[in-house]
């Protein structure tokens, strides 16, 4: 479906730091005029609470399948699109990159639109969860469907 020429398509779950250069290399090609990328990073504050780190957990084989599904759907919508998606799992610190997406196309509009669609789709369908740790020692499994009243526990 994706049939990218040149470098292999890169859709993966990793437990190691994400190498942006590897994503760019995977989508680069002489036919490409625009590469839009998205990086998700761990920030120091969420919902006004200082965050010390995040544990990312995934249903790994299904997460990889859903990510590949997103990639295939976007390539079907924008022929010629070259896409890479890598999500990191494990314990991340503030500033670490949790997810990286690169979308390359001959023209900038498909490149940017596909990048945006990829991250939005990833956030609603890829089975990955994050537990935020706060400076006061509490932690929470983040529930985007219930942001006003997150499940909060003490360890």
């Amino acid at each position: 479906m994706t049939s990218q020429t040149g470098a292999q398509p890169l859709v993966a779950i990793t437990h190691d730091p994400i190498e942006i250069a590897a994503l760019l290399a995977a989508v680069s090609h002489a036919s490409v005029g625009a590469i839009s990328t998205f990086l998700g990073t761990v920030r120091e504050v969420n919902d006004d609470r200082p965050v010390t780190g995040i544990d990312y957990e995934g249903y790994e084989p299904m997460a990889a399948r859903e990510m590949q599904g997103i990639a295939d759907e976007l390539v079907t919508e924008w022929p010629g699109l070259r896409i890479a998606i890598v999500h990191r799992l494990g314990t991340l610190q503030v500033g670490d990159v949790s997810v990286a997406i690169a979308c390359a196309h001959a023209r900038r509009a498909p490149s940017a639109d596909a990048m945006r669609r990829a991250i939005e789709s990833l956030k609603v369908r890829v089975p990955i969860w994050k537990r935020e740790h706060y400076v006061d020692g509490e932690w929470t499994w983040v529930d985007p469907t219930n942001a006003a009243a997150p499940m909060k526990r003490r360890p």
Partner: protein
Amino acid sequence: MTLPVLLFASYADAFGARTVAVPVTMPCTVADVVLAMRSIPGGEKLPAKPLVAVNQAYAKPDAPVHAGDEVALIPPVAGG
């Protein structure tokens, strides 16, 4: 028979396990599995309509479940 169901994140915390053995009568559906899980300690913490995956793909409540299927309960996702 009992069907092993995979648990993650807040659901694994609720049941205190990464996998729970759910008593079901085959043939059954996704909804039957969820209903049976409500009688297991921790099941009272499940939401009204938890997401379920069968063989690593999202499945609707009326989808069939067969012996040998890989069944997982999917908490609200928060990737990215």
